[in-house]
């Protein structure tokens, strides 16, 4: 009961709760689309690519203004996304190699910039490493507000373009034939995924953000065969695990938030893969047995 009281009235916990719920909802919803479009690992590559963006903004402004850091991270992600696609199109390499190359080069560049920043003598120099594994405890109301603004925007776009996003994810050629531009809307979905990534910077961090994108959608898919329900379940799983992980990392000293959230997600995913009512292992086996018996 104490915890509930704290969530409602404690300043830190309130912003943490708010932040994690927003992040979980947004990444759950957009991650579901990424999973369905086989772009889950794109999320991994893009989140790592945010690092140099954060560093450059910090080096230019000398401050950690949430919305500017998000903008820098988002810009770096978009450049990375563009490069990943261009490498595949123009060099004839496979998407995995392209992802791995861009991911590591951007992250390596970020590492170099980070070492430059840490060499400098500025007062809050250590602050940036929080973006690696996330630190929910340091989440301020300012940051939570910025997350809410960015995430809210992404969710509104999905709400209004739901059926268009559905048809381009299922059958892009058909979508184009009825006048729904699959390439432009696909780029928009990737852009919204980038928004989901940048709002996760403070809480999950860039390293483990991919789990936040893939796991809720992949787990939700085990429980339902409907896209709208899948998005809702993914949002619930994402925000639930986000919150649980944040609270664990605040309560247990020394555990960064990102890994704590990911472990919660892993547990939920394992349960879903085994017991999910739509495609979980147990139910599929049961159904198969029933079919064989009849």
């Amino acid at each position, binding site marked *: 009961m104490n915890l509930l009281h704290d969530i409602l009235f404690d300043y830190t916990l309130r912003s943490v709760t708010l932040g994690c719920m927003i992040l979980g909802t947004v990444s759950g919803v957009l991650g579901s689309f990424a999973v369905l479009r086989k772009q889950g*690992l794109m999320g991994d590559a893009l989140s790592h690519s945010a690092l140099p963006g954060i560093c450059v903004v910090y080096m230019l402004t000398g401050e950690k203004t949430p919305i500017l850091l998000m903008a820098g991270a988002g810009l770096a992600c978009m450049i990375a996304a563009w490069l990943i696609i261009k490498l595949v199109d123009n060099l004839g*390499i496979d998407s995995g190699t392209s992802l*791995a*190359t861009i991911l590591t080069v951007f*992250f390596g560049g970020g590492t170099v910039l980070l070492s430059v920043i840490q060499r400098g003598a500025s007062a809050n120099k250590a602050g940036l*490493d929080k973006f690696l594994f996330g630190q929910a405890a340091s989440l301020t109301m300012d940051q939570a507000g910025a997350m809410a603004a960015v995430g809210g925007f992404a969710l509104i776009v999905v709400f209004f373009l739901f059926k268009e996003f559905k048809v381009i994810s299922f059958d892009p050629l058909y979508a184009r034939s009825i006048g729904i531009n699959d390439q432009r809307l696909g780029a928009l979905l990737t852009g919204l995924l980038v928004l989901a990534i940048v709002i996760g910077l403070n809480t999950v961090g860039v390293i483990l953000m991919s789990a936040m994108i893939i*796991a809720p959608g992949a787990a939700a898919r085990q429980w339902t065969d409907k896209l709208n329900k899948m998005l809702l379940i993914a949002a619930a799983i994402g925000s639930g695990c986000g919150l649980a992980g944040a609270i664990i990392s605040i309560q247990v000293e020394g555990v960064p938030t990102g890994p704590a959230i990911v472990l919660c997600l892993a547990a939920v995913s394992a349960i879903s893969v085994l017991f999910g009512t739509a495609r979980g292992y147990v139910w599929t086996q049961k159904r198969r047995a029933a079919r064989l018996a009849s």
Partner: protein
Amino acid sequence: MSSGAIVALTAVLIAASCALCGVFLVLRRMAMMADAVTHAVLPGLVGAYVLANGPNLLAGLVGAAAAGLLTVWLVEVLTRSRGLKEDSAIGLVFPAMFAIGVVVVSKWYSGEHIDTDSILFGQLEFSWLDHFMFQGRDLGPTSFWMGGGLLLLNTIFLAVFYKELKITTFDPQEAECLGIKPRPMHYALMAVVAMTAVGAFSAVGAVLSVALIVIPAAAALLLTSRLPLAILGSVGIAAIGSLGGHASALKFDVSIAGMITVILGLVFLLAALISPRKGLVAQFFRRRTQSRRFAAEMLVVHLLTHEGTAEEPIESAYVHLLDELEWSPKYAALATREARGRGAILMVGDNFRLTASGREWARDLAEQKRFMPA
């Protein structure tokens, strides 16, 4: 030997080992699986550290190989049970493995031999500190033994299984017919990758290990399609990347691991530009001449198609190119200039006419491009 030289040599040894197994990984389109395995070795290392009660190279290698294989197996199970696509399965398994490692390290072992910083960025800078002691004798830096050992492991693995790796990569069905099972080969390769990842991991950290495995191989494969050359080339690129990265990191006083990756990225960029067959520069020029020739080809085939028909006077007029082929005036001019330059067409009044050689060219094209079932 100076500490700098030890660090540089360690980097070369480890990068070369990674490059060796990287070529086959890239050819098998498994770069992101490499990403998964380099992350997943962490819980293996941590487990070995806990069990062996301290750092122990051999236990670490075994633990890492086990964790790597567990990851590969989990991905396979999740994919095969129809529940998940491979990329989702990868993206689900390795963050979980990695998170377990990070939590254990940051909760219980923070400040000991491993901490989260060294997990992410490696400890190449400190590789000269540890020396390998045997019966009280100093046998040189541990990192040499580790790097050298891994290079030896990879060289022997490639030398012994070269043929098997090659055939299971390029033609798994043929391999099966010849009695070479692709699956054990797959797991053997992944075990070697996982052990190699231990070296990379300790040098440059979990994320940048992938750079050492994937980028030299990807760059070399841009430059050549001959496998032995690609393998040699990737080792060369790995050496350039690690030496160049080390030197520039010292010069600018920045992270060595980060700088090695950046240099490797630059080498990749250079390869992408100048590769004679796949390079962007070559493509640009090839495409320019190709698209000119193709414009002329379209024109002569078009003329041939309508030659001798009732519509020929309309079809062979210049305006027709704009109206029905929907070419821009610029493109039409390009096509006619090119076709004329090759002596394939003549202008008769307002109409184009094929010359004898133009007709032959068009016939050859029409015949040649026709798809014939075997």
